[in-house]
């Protein structure tokens, strides 16, 4: 695999839009084994995906808004949006290090000290450090007030004890963004501290959990007297977490910005593949109203995303409005996944390669989409946020 590692400044032809630059880069670098529409090619290894993601950054398609001094490209959300449109339209793999780029990076920029910024941030973009998110616990999911993992200050540093769960990518990560408690569980939202924990620290035990799509990305992570250096605490106790929650409300609105265009790309793939075989196209036609609804949903999702980008570029606060695109996308995408699954399940047994490829992809999307209304705040949590913080509905007499 040869990757074109040209930064945005070097690679862009004068007058070229950022979208055109992104499109060309992807055409040159998204090889068959990385493509998600080629189910029967030998899939890319983790190492190859990491190399691809590092090259995405070098090519100007990641770290776009991050400051140049920390390895970013110092551009705006406008360019980020343009690049993500093209990434979405392509059958490109999901990011290995999305936690690092979309969660950790913004938090470190907001609360980290200079040493942490210059140490952590470039390593994320170069894919030297993959990060996982150690927030959820068996007794604390969306309600982090129930968090029990403890951090105690000792002569050797902070001593961590506890258990995290649903920690995506923990088994391949170098670092964990860990949320722990320095006080008692009764303190609820007080006494919470953020740490950047090295995953090779003694006392960390990672156990993979197989998810419904057969993947082994999910993990349980056990912390048994794990010592974390003082310098790996992000912000002061409380201050770090409080700042992080503000950052996260913005990130929730802007992360995985390519989703609308990826959704469109999945529809495009399904239609193109069905058009390769008259029998499949006849099946597809039976679902024309549902497909039209899915395509409309894509446009509406673009509206949500673009409006939020406009707001952010204008310096306006996003707050709970980030719940709208999350809620809209996850449910619309599940509806599409259901009908796409039904369509491909009706393909004839002697279907050709194009149909077999799309069948495998849609089956995978159907299963993986079940998580979309659960992670990053369940549908029910999003509905609660809208009721409480947007509609301001009172819940007592």
């Amino acid at each position: 695999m040869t990757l074109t590692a040209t930064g945005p400044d070097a690679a862009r032809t004068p007058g070229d839009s950022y979208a055109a630059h992104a499109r060309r880069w992807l055409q040159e670098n998204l090889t068959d084994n990385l493509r998600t529409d080629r189910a029967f090619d030998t899939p890319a290894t983790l190492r190859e995906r990491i190399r691809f993601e590092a090259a995405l950054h070098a090519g100007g398609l990641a770290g776009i808004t991050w400051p140049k001094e920390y390895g970013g490209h110092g551009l705006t959300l406008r360019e980020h949006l343009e690049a993500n449109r093209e990434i979405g339209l392509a059958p490109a793999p999901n990011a290995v290090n999305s936690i690092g780029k979309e969660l950790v990076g913004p938090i470190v920029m907001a609360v980290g000290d200079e040493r942490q910024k210059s140490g952590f941030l470039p390593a994320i973009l170069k894919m030297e450090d993959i990060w996982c998110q150690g927030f959820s616990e068996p007794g604390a999911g969306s309600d982090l007030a129930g968090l029990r993992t403890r951090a105690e200050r000792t002569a050797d540093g902070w001593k961590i004890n506890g258990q995290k769960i649903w920690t995506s990518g923990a088994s391949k990560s170098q670092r964990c963004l860990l949320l722990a408690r320095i006080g008692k569980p009764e303190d609820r939202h007080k006494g919470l501290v953020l740490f950047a924990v090295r995953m090779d620290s003694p006392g960390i035990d990672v156990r993979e959990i197989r998810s419904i799509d057969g993947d082994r990305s999910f993990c349980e992570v056990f912390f048994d007297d794990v010592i974390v250096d003082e310098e790996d605490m992000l912000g002061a106790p409380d201050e770090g977490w409080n700042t992080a929650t503000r950052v996260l409300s913005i990130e929730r609105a802007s992360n995985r910005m390519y989703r609308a265009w990826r959704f469109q790309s999945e529809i495009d793939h399904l239609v193109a593949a069905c058009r390769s075989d008259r029998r499949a196209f006849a099946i597809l036609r039976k679902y024309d109203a549902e497909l039209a609804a899915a395509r409309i949903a894509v446009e509406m999702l673009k509206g949500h995303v673009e409006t939020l980008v406009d707001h952010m570029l204008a310096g306006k606060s996003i707050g709970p409005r980030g719940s709208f695109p999350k809620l809209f996308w996850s449910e619309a995408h599940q509806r599409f996944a259901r009908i796409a699954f039904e369509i491909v399940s009706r393909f004839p047994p002697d279907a050709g390669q194009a149909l077999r490829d799309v069948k495998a992809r849609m089956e995978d999307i159907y299963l993986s989409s079940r998580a979309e209304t659960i992670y990053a705040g369940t549908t029910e949590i999003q509905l609660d946020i809208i009721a409480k913080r947007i509609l301001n509905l009172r819940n007592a007499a």
Partner: protein
Amino acid sequence: MADDLDPQDFENTAKAVMEACAATDAVSERTALLAEAGLLAVTAPESVNGLDLPLEFAVPICRASGAGLLGYPIIETILLSKALAAADTGIAGRIASGEVVATIAWRGVAEDGVVGAAPMAMDADLVLLFRADGSAVLAPVGNAVKPEPVEAFDVDAPDALVRLFGPADGIVVDAATVQELKQEAIVLRAAYVQGSAAQCLSIAADYAQERMQFGKPLSANQVLRHRLSRDALAVETMKNGLVRALATTGAEAAMARDAVWLEAAKSGPAVAESAIQVFGGMGFTWEVPLHRHLRQMRAQAAYGAAADGLDSLAERVLTTSDNGWYGEIPDGL
């Protein structure tokens, strides 16, 4: 000029005018109020004393009209004051100033001898009739062109049939201008429906907090909180879809425009239906205005041929794709 103005200012003005219009049953008085505030000719050129502003300035006016149950062919008037400016400055100016009331018969073509879906045609002086070749003619109401009342679904701005007795004479609008008028109508209708739906949500949310059941407000029940949250999502989706439809140019513009209209035509009435449910038995009464919102949104969906639009969008999805990533898959049809 547009650089100095904010569409939001027009929304505030429009809301005040809607309140004034609600206080009178006389169409002539509403016309005067709307014209005086400059709301009828916001996109019309200066040659007809219009404000010559982009379509985004008409959006808040239509949104406020939908929310306020205006009872006036506001969408049609805004469109006609602009579309006729090139063909006849005089008549466009009279429409813009509120001197005459004009409407559009959205369904059928003049050649059929009868056209329909003409909001408030019974009160109109002029009706735009579409023709089979894509052009249209603005015909004066009279012996040759007679509106006829129907059992209108929208009780605030009832539509009528228009029968033609002989050839429809009047000012001809060329096919290209008609096409542009129809494209702009899609956006303005979506705005009208979004305003109406937002008002339904607001009414229902207020009621849910006032109405006590079992010692607590309705809004304390999670099932109702979530219902209202979903309605808020629907309203926000329409609103953001409109922003996108107004901002998108080039090859993607038609899809952005059609999508928000079809979304509004589906979701707008659903928000009204949901609000009726929140009100319980009261919601099913004539007195609570939710049915009027539901009626006007359903009427707009019919004027804009939403069901047909969904069919044609589906056809577009199945037959056209410019995603080069799948260009290697052979077309076997």
